[in-house]
């Protein structure tokens, strides 16, 4: 029986860690820039603009992470189920 543990290999861990770390790093960087801009300018007009831009940046990065990870996970799953090619059996069935 194929369980979720069969898909949890080093490729998936590397994929998720790279995307999560990338998204978090870029989001943190832009949030720090936004906070610094808010703190430096202290303008009631600029503050909601920066807040809106930060919201869009965070949402876009999270959405991108979800899309890319799902796409790559789909590819890995298809490759795992398809097998090694040349008529060989699927790797998870061999295991």
């Amino acid at each position, binding site marked *: 029986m194929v369980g979720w543990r069969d898909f949890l290999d080093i490729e998936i861990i590397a994929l998720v860690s790279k995307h999560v770390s990338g998204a978090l790093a870029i989001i943190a960087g832009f949030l720090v820039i936004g906070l610094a801009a808010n703190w430096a300018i202290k303008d009631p007009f600029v503050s909601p603009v920066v807040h*809106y*831009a930060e919201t869009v940046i965070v949402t876009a*990065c999270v959405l*991108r992470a979800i899309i890319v990870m799902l796409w790559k996970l789909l590819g890995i799953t298809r490759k795992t189920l398809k097998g090694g090619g040349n008529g060989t059996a699927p790797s998870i069935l061999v295991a």
Partner: protein
Amino acid sequence: MAQHPQSWLHSTLDVWLGYLLTATAAVPASALGLFLIRRGAGQQIAILISVSLAVLTGFFAEWVVRFWRGRWLVVVPMTPEIVYQFDWSTSHFVSAAGFVLVVTGAPARQHALTLPPEPTTAASASLLVRAA
């Protein structure tokens, strides 16, 4: 043509570049969203448009970057001999040996200022060192 395999660092930096491009594209997209809000559009619609535009622009920018990098980057095939020489020349042993040779091979200053000998007292540094 055998290509040099992409290292973990390179692939991670590629992934981070995509997020950087997306976040950069989100700035003009949020400006557009604010413009739409100012023109009377709903806030949710404006955010939806901004986020979608940012993500799509990020993907497009990543594709453009990869396309141009692929045009300009020349991948040099590495033969086993080159790999062996490269590994040998960058090994830790050779690096350490080079460091030692550079440090010990540095010529001493011939015309350095010579200080007068230290007067030997009970509290002199050399005696203290010797006592320790």
